[in-house]
């Protein structure tokens, strides 16, 4: 069943037409990846889904409900939760406080405590540093925190914007392993990546975005075999 549906979405920055009629769907329990070069419009799409940007045209639905009437902070409460590009943890808040902010829409105290424990089992490094201000964490730890923070809201759909960006290869590996783990545990994921090779290895399906338009969509396996994808995104001759 489709949980997230994006239908013919057009988003502008002033006069700049950044998204030119995007349509995609994410089904319950799926791990879908959106790949594309720098500047293709990937972050713009995630911001539009999260309600930070408003489409001039088109519709975004969560489990059938039109999200147009909701503001960004309300959309989180609906269950669409994003870990933004560049991590953007709250540098002057501690690790624990960052996680509490992730749970801002929740009121069940014991559930929140369980959530924090869950994040700490997923990322033991964060537990060691729970009282440290996030600004002093390493890049990899900040990415773990950004993902953990998003998980705290108990997402129905988790949007990840380039979680591997700027990380050393070994950390990229471990972040992708975490995503596989989350997916296996039933989390629905829309993963935005420039690292198409890794993303297509772990995703069920994929979309290819180029200058504001979806130019391809298929199962991840087929996309890996696609000649155009191999040339443009997987660096094969």
């Amino acid at each position, binding site marked *: 069943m489709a949980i997230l549906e994006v239908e013919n979405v057009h988003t502008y920055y002033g006069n700049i037409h950044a998204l030119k009629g995007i349509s995609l769907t994410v089904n319950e329990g799926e791990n879908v990846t959106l790949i594309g070069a720098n500047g293709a419009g990937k972050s713009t799409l995630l911001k539009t889904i999260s309600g930070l940007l408003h489409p001039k045209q088109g519709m975004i639905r969560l489990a059938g409900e039109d999200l147009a009437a909701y503001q960004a*902070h309300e959309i989180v409460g609906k269950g669409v939760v994003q870990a*933004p590009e560049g991590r953007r943890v709250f540098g002057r808040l501690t690790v624990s406080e960052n996680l509490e902010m992730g749970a801002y829409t929740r009121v069940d105290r014991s559930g929140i405590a369980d959530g924090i424990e869950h994040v700490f089992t997923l990322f033991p490094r964060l537990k060691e540093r729970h009282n440290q201000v996030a600004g002093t964490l390493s890049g990899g730890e900040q990415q773990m925190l950004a993902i953990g923070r998003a998980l705290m809201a108990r997402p129905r759909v988790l949007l990840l914007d380039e979680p591997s960006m700027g990380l050393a290869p070994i950390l990229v590996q471990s972040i992708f392993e975490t995503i596989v783990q989350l997916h296996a545990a039933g989390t629905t994921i829309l993963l935005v990546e420039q690292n198409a090779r890794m993303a297509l290895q772990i995703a069920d399906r994929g979309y290819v975005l180029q200058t504001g338009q979806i130019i391809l969509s298929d199962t991840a396996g087929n996309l890996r075999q696609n000649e155009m994808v191999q040339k443009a995104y997987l660096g094969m001759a």
Partner: protein
Amino acid sequence: MRRALERISLIDVFMWIVGGSIIGIVLVGSVATIRSGQYSIRHWSDFLIFGVAQGSVYALIALGYTLVYGILRMINFAHGEVFMSGAYTAFFVADALSKSGFLGQNPLLGLLAVFAVSMATSVTVAVILERVAYRPLRRAPRLVPLITAIGASFFLQYTFRGFYGSGFKSYPEVPVLQGSWVWGGIVSIQRIQVLVIVAAGLLMLALYTYVQRTRAGKAMRAVSEDKDVAALMGINVDAVIVQTFIIGAALAGAAGVLYALMFRQVHFFMGFFPGIKAFTAAVLGGIGNIPGAMLGGLFLGIFESVGPILFLDGLGVPAPYQLKDAIAFTMLVLILIFRPTGILGERLARAKA
């Protein structure tokens, strides 16, 4: 060596000379004043306690500037008028309660009522200000809300002048707050100063606890760091901004009553100097930084109270106390030149729009 010298510009040299001579004057003046023996320990402790009381009021107002700056990177120049609006409105309540004798019989309830009216008025004014004057301009260039704030400041002054008249009104005396305590003939503290210092201290402690410990306080800090990401956490950013104005205004309203009780008069223009001073204090402590505003306020109050006599009396300046504002602003300029970040804070110019 040569290249290092070349990097020092003439202006730098000039500024160092200015700074050096000011420090020289301050040192020579202080030594001369102390050696003249004209002022006893009792005098100095009076100046100091007055400075702490005055500084506590500055600190409360300064927190309003710093909280709003922390969230919106904007100087709310109408904050002095938020302070005035509460104190001035509460005057009528204080006056009525005093005339009916209630303030004499039941000072605690009476004062609480005066504080409540003042804080409620300041909060109302600030919330309207945010909604009408600032929110529509949130995405405008930085200069625009600044001009609006100055306009709002005049608007409020003349509105209150229109409502309440242009004369000074004298705040009633509260019988229990009359008189002072003396220890060993050296330290003497007026009851009203005790009220000011204790009330301000408690309010600041409450604010600090709120910001550090509560969920809403943490959300406030999150919004001050990154509004978009705060929204992605489900935080209603507009509501947090309004809440910030409310807290700043409540503190200003309380400061207004304390100020009026200390100086015993109110006036439509009464917000101007304390407003500017508190802004100075906020910059001094590091704008956007909460402990900085508290420290900056206290420091400025003490500096203003002790400084003029200490620095200038020994130099034969006839009426040093008249120069306290000049001294305060000289200090502001020096701080902006030599330590633009203030004592604890971030750089004023580096702040993003």
